[in-house]
C-alpha cells in the first residue's frame, strides 16, 4: 500500500480503528520519516521515540481488547515546544530553558492524550514564540519543506513544516499574532487560531497572555476540526477560558452553508499585496460566489495598512500589537532569572542582581531581549499612558471595526501573509520588516477572534499561498465550514515533493 503517511489524520484514524493499520506501525512509519528528513528540516527539538512507541502499543492493546480508542486513537502528533509536557523537556527553543523539565502537562496535551493521540515529539519555534520565521530559535532554524533554502514561517514553524512534510499526522501550534496561520500559509497546510478563551492556555508558556491561543495545524480542514473538538472547552485552571459548550466541529463540517455572507476586507486588498496572492484571494471570492455566497467589500479602518514613500508598510494593528505583546512579554518572561529553574550563569557573581543579569544575558536571544526591553519601556512610569494605555484604546477600536463587519458578514476573506515564504536570512537584519509578516493576522488576536489559513494554490516559484478566513467569536463552526467549502472548491492541497507524495 502507499505510505500510510499519505493518509490524512481522519483517514489514518479510520484505518487504525478498522485494524488495517496498527498504531505501532503508524508511529514507526512517522518516526522513520523523522529519522530520514528531520536532519535536513529540523522541525523537532526532541523526539520522544520510546514513549511514542509505548503509547502506540497501548492503543493497539486497547483495540485488541475491544475498548474504544478515543477520537484521536493512535494518531501520531507533534507538539510545539512552548506547550508543557510532563515528559521530556519544554524548551521554548530558548537556551534559558534548554534543560527545563515541566512538572506537568498542559491541558491541551492531556486532552489530546486522553483522546488517544500518540505524541511524537516537541517542535521548533522562534524563541518563546517571538518571530515569524523560526530563525529566532535558540537552537537552529527550521527549513521549509517546499524549498529548504526558505523559512517555514513562524513562530510555529516546526509544527507547520512537520505537518507539511508528513512528519506527523497533525500538530499543535500557538498563535499570538499569526504564529499558527502564517507558517501554515508558508508551508501549504491548514492552521487554525481559535477564539481567545476557546482552548485552555494552561501549560502554554506565556508570551502575550491576552493574545496567545493554542490551535491545530493540519493537512486539511477536517483534520483541524477534529483536533479542535478535542482541545476546546472550559478549563478551571485557566480563568480566561470560557465556559461554553463545545460543538462537534467535524460533524457539522459538510453541512451546506445557506446564505453565507462573505466580506472581502478592502484594507487587506491593497496595492501592496503581491499580485499572485491577490489573485488567490480573488479566486477564493469567486469560489464563494459560485457556491451561492454573497460576497461584499467590508472595511476594517483601524486595521488599514499604509505604504510609506519608501514602500515600507505601516499599520495601527501592528503597532498596537507590538506594544501589547511586548509589554505582556516583559512581565511574563521576568520569571526566567536563574534562581528557581532554567539556565543559571556558571560565572562567579557578586550578588543576586549580577546573577539575574548574567543568567538572562546568556540565556535569552537577541529578539527576546529586544522585546523585553521595548515592553519594559512601554510599561515604565511616564510612558505607560502614551504606549500601553493608548494601545489598549486602539485595540478597542480594532475590535469595534470587527463587530461592525460581523454585523454584515459571517466570515471575512483576505490574504494570510503579504508574501510567500522568504529565504533564510532575508529579514533577520531588519526586525521591523519581519514584524510586518503578521500584518494580516494580528488584528484577529487583538480582537480575540478565530481565524484560519487555508492553502490556495502555489505561486510561480512553486511556493504555497494561503488565504485567511476570520469569523466572529465562537463562530468556529461557520468558519470551518466556510474553509471546507474553499477546500472543496480549490481541490486538495498538494504535499511538498520532499514528503514523497504519490
Amino acid at each position, binding site marked *: 500500500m502507499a505510505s500510510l503517511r499519505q493518509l490524512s489524520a481522519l483517514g489514518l484514524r479510520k484505518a487504525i480503528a478498522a485494524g488495517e493499520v496498527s498504531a505501532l506501525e503508524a508511529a514507526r512509519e512517522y518516526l522513520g520519516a523523522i529519522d530520514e528528513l528531520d536532519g535536513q528540516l529540523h522541525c523537532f527539538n526532541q523526539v520522544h521515540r520510546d514513549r511514542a512507541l509505548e503509547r502506540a502499543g497501548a492503543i493497539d492493546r486497547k483495540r485488541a481488547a475491544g475498548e474504544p480508542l478515543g477520537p484521536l486513537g493512535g494518531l501520531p502528533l507533534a507538539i510545539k515546544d512552548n*506547550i*508543557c509536557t510532563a515528559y521530556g523537556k*519544554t524548551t*521554548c527553543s530558548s537556551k534559558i*530553558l534548554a534543560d*527545563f523539565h*515541566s*512538572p*506537568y502537562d*498542559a491541558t491541551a496535551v492531556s486532552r489530546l492524550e486522553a483522546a488517544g493521540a500518540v505524541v511524537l515529539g516537541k517542535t521548533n519555534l522562534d524563541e518563546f514564540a517571538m518571530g515569524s520565521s523560526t530563525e529566532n530559535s535558540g537552537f537552529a532554524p527550521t527549513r521549509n519543506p517546499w524549498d529548504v533554502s526558505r523559512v517555514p514561517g513562524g513562530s510555529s514553524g516546526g509544527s507547520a513544516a512537520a505537518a507539511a512534510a508528513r512528519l506527523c499526522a497533525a500538530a499543535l501550534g500557538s498563535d499570538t499574532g499569526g504564529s499558527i496561520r502564517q507558517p501554515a500559509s508558508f508551508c501549504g497546510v491548514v492552521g487554525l487560531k481559535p477564539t481567545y478563551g476557546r482552548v485552555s*492556555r*494552561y*501549560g*502554554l*508558556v*506565556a508570551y*502575550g*497572555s*491576552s493574545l496567545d491561543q493554542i490551535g491545530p495545524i493540519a493537512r486539511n480542514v477536517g483534520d483541524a476540526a477534529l483536533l479542535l473538538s478535542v482541545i476546546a472547552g472550559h478549563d*478551571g*485552571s*485557566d*480563568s*480566561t477560558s470560557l465556559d461554553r459548550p463545545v460543538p462537534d466541529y467535524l460533524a457539522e463540517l459538510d453541512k451546506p452553508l445557506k446564505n453565507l455572507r462573505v466580506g472581502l476586507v478592502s484594507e487587506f486588498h491593497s496595492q501592496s499585496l503581491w499580485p499572485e496572492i491577490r489573485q488567490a484571494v480573488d479566486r477564493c471570492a469567486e469560489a464563494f460566489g459560485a457556491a451561492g455566497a454573497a460576497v461584499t467589500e467590508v472595511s476594517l479602518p483601524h486595521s488599514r495598512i499604509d505604504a510609506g514613500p519608501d514602500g515600507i508598510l505601516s499599520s495601527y494593528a501592528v503597532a498596537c500589537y507590538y506594544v501589547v505583546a511586548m*509589554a*505582556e512579554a*516583559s*512581565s511574563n518572561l*521576568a*520569571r526566567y*532569572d536563574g*534562581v*528557581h*529553574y532554567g539556565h543559571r550563569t556558571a560565572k562567579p557573581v557578586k550578588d*543576586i*542582581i549580577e546573577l*539575574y543579569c548574567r543568567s538572562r544575558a546568556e540565556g535569552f536571544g537577541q529578539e527576546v531581549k529586544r522585546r523585553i526591553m521595548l515592553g*519594559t519601556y512601554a*510599561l*515604565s*512610569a511616564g510612558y*505607560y499612558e502614551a504606549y*500601553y494605555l493608548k494601545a489598549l484604546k486602539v485595540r478597542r477600536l480594532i475590535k469595534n471595526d470587527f463587530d461592525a463587519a460581523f454585523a454584515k458578514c459571517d466570515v471575512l476573506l483576505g490574504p494570510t501573509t503579504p508574501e510567500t515564504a522568504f529565504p533564510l536570512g532575508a529579514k533577520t537584519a531588519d526586525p521591523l520588516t519581519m514584524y510586518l509578516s503578521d500584518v494580516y493576522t494580528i488584528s484577529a488576536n487583538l480582537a480575540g477572534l478565530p481565524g484560519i489559513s487555508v492553502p490556495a494554490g502555489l505561486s510561480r516559484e512553486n511556493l504555497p499561498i494561503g488565504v485567511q478566513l476570520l469569523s466572529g467569536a465562537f463562530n468556529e463552526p461557520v468558519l470551518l465550514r466556510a474553509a471546507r467549502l474553499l477546500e472543496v472548491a480549490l481541490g486538495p492541497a498538494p504535499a511538498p515533493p520532499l514528503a514523497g507524495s504519490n
Partner: protein
Amino acid sequence: MAPTEAENPTSPTLTTVIGLEIHCELDTRTKMFCRCLNRFGDPPNTHTCPVCIGMPGALPVMNRQAVDMTIKAGLALNCQVPEFTKWDRKGYYYPDLPKNYQISQYDLPLAREGYLDVPLPGGRTSRIRVRRAHLEEDAGKNVHDLAAHTGVDLNRAGVPLLEIVSEPDIHSVEEVMGYSRSMRRLVRWLGISQANMQMGHMRFEPNISIWVGDGQRIFDESAGYFTPILEIKNLNSFRSLEKTVEWIIDYHRAQIIERGRDWSLEKVGKQNWGYRDDLECCEFQRGKEEAHDYRYFPDPDLAPVRVEAAWRDRIAAEIGELPIARKGRYLAQYQLSDKEADALTEDAPTGDLLDSAVKLGGPVRRVVNLMMGRMMAASNQKGSTLAQLGVSAEALAELAGMMEAGKLSASAADRVMEVLLAEGGKPLDIATRLGVLAVSDASAIEAWVDAAIAANAGPAEQVRTGDKKAKQAFGFLMGAVMKLSGGKAPPAAVKQLLEQKLSPK
C-alpha cells in the same frame, strides 16, 4: 480636627503626620491563586505547585474566599466596595517572588474610602480614615540560616494578603498603636485573619513626616511645610512599630533643629528606612532617586471582578456586631471594667463564649471571673485566644452556677477548671470525681464549725468580744473550717454558722 502635639508654644508648632499600611495574611483554606494549603510552620516548600512557584505556563485562579474576606473587612471599615475591580501585576525582582511580579490591585481596590474609630485612653476616640483596602499575594521567605547559601521557602508564596492603607490622619505614637491594635482586633473579630504576630500574619509600614507650621492648617502650603516622608517597611511586631515611630519622630525633630528647611519633603523627597531590631534604631536604605518603578499593568491572566449588590449584601449580613459596639454593650449591660471589656472583645468567639454562657444562665460576674482568671492564664501560656481553649459555654455556665449556689469554693472551682482545660467534661462530674463538691449536710458542716471553734479558742473569743482583731480572727476561723472540710464546706453556710455561734452574748 485631629489632636496635635504642641511641642513648643512659640511657633512653629510640630505636628506628627503618619499614614500606616497594614499587611494582614488572610486565614483562607488555600492560597490566593492556587489550591495549595495556606499553612504556616510546615517544612519548607511542602505547600507549593506550578502556580505558586511560577512555573512556565502555569496560570492563577482567584480564591473567592479571600475576596469575600476582603469585602468583609472593607464593609466593617465603612468603605465603599465598588462593583468593578481588577487585578494588576506589580513588577520587581526578588528571589522570594518566583514570577518576579506580584499579583496585586493597583488603581481599583476591592474597598476604598472608609474609616476606623479608634478608642484611646481616657475615653477619647480618633477617627482614622482608610484610603483603601486591597488584596494581593504574599511573597515567599528567604531562609538565611543555611550553611553555604540562602534558601527560599515558598510555602508563604501566594498566601492572600490584605493591605489596608490609612490616610495620613495619625498624629501620635498613641494613635498609631491604638489604630494598629484596633485593626488587629477587627480582623480577628471578623474571622478573616489569625493576626498572630509571631507567625508574621501582620506587618506594618508607617510613613512618617512632621508638619512644621500651623497645626490647624496641615497641607496648606502657606501655613507650613512637611519634613521628608520616611517609610519603614516590614515591621512585624507592635513593639517594633512603637519603637520605630518614636525613633523616627525624634530623628525628624533633631533634623528640624539641625537643618531647618533643608530637611523638607520638597528638598529631600521620600526615603526608605529600615528598623534594626538588635539596635532599636532605624537606618537609611534608599532615597527617592532609587525608588522602584513597579510597572503596574492589568494582569491578562485574570478576569476583572464584578462585586454585585447581592454578593456585597450577603457578606454585609455576615458581619454582625463589631468590637466597639460589643465593648460598649459589655460595659453597660454586664457592668464590666474597661480592662475586662477589652480583653473579652479581643476576638468574636471569646465574646460569643461569654454571651452564650450568660444566656445559658451563668451569673455574669462569676463567668467573667472564670474567664479572666484561670482561662486567661492558660491562654497567655498557650498563645491562644480564650475561645480557642475549648471550654464550652455550657461548662462555663454550669461551673459559674455551681459557685453561685455555694456548691463549689473558689479554690475547688479552680481545680475543676484545670481539668476542664486539660481534658474537658462536665463540671459536676469533675467536681464529684475530685471530691471537691461542697457538702450540703448541715450536721456535717456544724461539726466542722464546732471542731474549729474548739481548736481555736483564742480567735473565737476575739470574734465573740468584738476585739479589734475580730475581723482577722473570723477569717482565720473560716480558713480552719475549710481546711477541716477539705474544701468541701460551702463558704456561705460556714460564714452563717460561725456568725451565729460567735455572736456577742
